[in-house]
């Protein structure tokens, strides 16, 4: 975003904070697609993503006065979105899936770089997205926060409620699970845990 665009965005935010509905509409129109896509990646179904997007923007509108203008707006939006989605998923997870601490204690197989390269060569973006749907909630969320929202490890730790030093483990674990699903080895695991 160039300086002029940034200035325009700041102005719209200020107008929206003072209650200007048009400015809010403009902000919404600009950012809703990205937030929807974020939710689409983080949540198990399209319907969940739609509902979550609406709820997130309702929250954002209510909290707009608390937004610190020195912080990038989209980063703030992603934080609200991530917290909302993770909160939803966590509430469901309590009763639903089998992913808990035991997964973290499983040893990670050291990858053969050649095989990993082959795996990457063989699979398209669409296949990766489909495989992501089968990941447990936290693994998927971690990947989305890092590789879609480009959040820092600190932000990811804050959102997922884990220690900062543990974020790398979560991400690496998620990559391993994804590789297993792409190789077809993770199908049984995914079926057992179900889409969280």
């Amino acid at each position, binding site marked *: 975003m160039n300086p002029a665009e940034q200035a325009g965005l700041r102005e719209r935010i200020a107008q929206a904070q003072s209650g200007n*509905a048009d400015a*809010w*509409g403009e902000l*919404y*129109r600009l950012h*809703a*697609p990205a937030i*929807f*896509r974020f939710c*689409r*990646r983080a949540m*198990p*179904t*399209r*319907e*969940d993503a*739609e*509902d979550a*997007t*609406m709820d997130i*923007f*309702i929250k954002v*509108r*209510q909290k707009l006065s608390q937004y610190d203008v020195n912080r990038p707006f989209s980063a703030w939006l992603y934080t609200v979105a991530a917290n909302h989605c993770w909160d*939803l998923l966590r*509430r*469901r997870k*309590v*009763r*639903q899936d089998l992913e808990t601490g035991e997964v973290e204690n499983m040893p*990670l197989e*050291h*990858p053969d*770089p*050649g095989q*990993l*390269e082959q795996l*990457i060569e063989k*699979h398209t*973006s*669409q296949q*990766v*997205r489909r495989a*992501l749907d089968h990941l447990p909630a936290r693994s998927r969320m971690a*990947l*989305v926060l*890092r*590789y*879609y929202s480009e959040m820092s*490890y600190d932000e990811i730790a804050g959102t997922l409620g884990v220690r900062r030093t543990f974020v*790398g*483990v979560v*991400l*690496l674990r998620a*990559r391993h699970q*994804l590789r297993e699903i792409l190789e077809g080895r993770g199908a049984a695991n995914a079926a057992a845990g*179900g*889409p969280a």
Partner: protein
Amino acid sequence: MIHFDEMACLLYLEGQLEDSRARELAAHVAECAPCRYLLHALERESKLLSGALTEEDEAIPARLLGVQTQGWPSWVWSLAFAAFAAASYWVWNDGIGPWLDQLNNAGFGGTNLMSMMLFSGAFWEGWGDLVDILQIVALLAVVILALGLVRRRLRRPAAVALVLPALLIALALPPQAGAAEVRRGRAVLVPAGETIHNDLIATGPSVRIDGTVEGDLIVFTRELTVTGHVTGDVIAFAGQALIDGTVDGNARVFSQHATLQGSIGKNVTAFANSITVTPMGNVGGGMLAFAGEADLEGKIRRDLMGRIGRSDLDGLIGGQVWIRGLTLDVASTAEIDGPATFQGNQQPSVAAGAKLASPIRTEITQEVGRSRRSETRKVIHEIIGYGAALLAGILLLTVFPGFYRSTLRETGAIGLPLGVGALAFISGIFVFVLGVLLLFIGVTAGVAGALLYAPILYLAQVFVGAWLGNKILGVTSTQTGAVIGRMALGLLILHVARLIPVLGGLTWLVVLLWGTGAVLMGFYRMSRVENVPLPA
């Protein structure tokens, strides 16, 4: 050579490794081919992940494009409640208040009104059946709509769901006259010799029809006397009603005391504290009566059905008789040409000379037994109601999943749908009163509106139940079975709660207002869905 592990490589790539360790790893990678390959593979994997996640593979749904610009900001709450308060005041001041005055004028005020409403308990008992009928009608409406809409795969089911039944009902009911003659005054009189070539609506303390009305007569008065001729129906809300003339159509009488002395061509429906058909009275069709007392000395050519406290039969009943009440006395002058059934807590008294086609079949209802039975009946009624509501909910979820989700989401807002529901209820009553009593838009539209409201009212419980289930078991949306399970649990709680006296009633009042508000908001949301491309 000691290699770096995958974790260290990933942290290095992500810029998360301490400086000294990062330098160490960089130096190592320059020398070590396997670690270099691993680093390269991880980097490619990161790119693949970023690419897969950020790729714009599907359009943003239309409902997300329009709603936020006109969302529900906090001031809408205040506005909704302010509107509700204003509407309530207005309805009371300009609607209910004057009508109550008119009711008082008509002799329905205070205890009279209560006595007329309760009819020694008979009227209230009838409500159970009415509610059953409404439930069945509502369920049928949902099923028919669902089948029709699935078949046609219409794009806007919600809007069609609203309009279609209204059209059907409007078509099914006979059309009303576009305009009716309205007469108001302290004493409305249609003198003998005068003919009104139209429907007549008459209001005032006293209404007397000595002349001819070529159409329907609709009356709201304290004292009604008809000695003339009405070619259509008579619909009367009157303290005292005397029909001494000729009515070619039906007589629908809501009255404290109704006396039929003349001739009614078709059927009589009477809600009255007491009803009398004098020896001169002649009803061409049958009679349906909800009354505290009935003294039937005249001729009823077809069936007589009623919930009547005390019945005296002195005249002719051309068809069957079915009466539920306290006592039945059949005089020696009486003649019943069809089978007769009486349900009461004592044997009917039949005079020696009475002509009966067959002995009166009597079912004695003991008070204690009745009370127990009524408790059992209540529970059975709840079970049936629960099953029907669950079925309606499952149908809705299967056929209109989008509408279901959208409405359930609105239900979660609690306060706003409650406000909207209350507002709709007040407006509904007002429109109904306007439609039916003032006939600004006709009886058909009024009844259609009321019947349209019934399915919405019925579905209210489904969404509140589903919301409750979600609150208890947690939200889910991936498995239909789980969604239905939550709905079933919530509905079960609501139906069990209904069995609690007073509290159950109050709970259901809230449930109905809350749910109808949510359904209406769900309709609103659905009506805004359109397929539009992703904005640039």
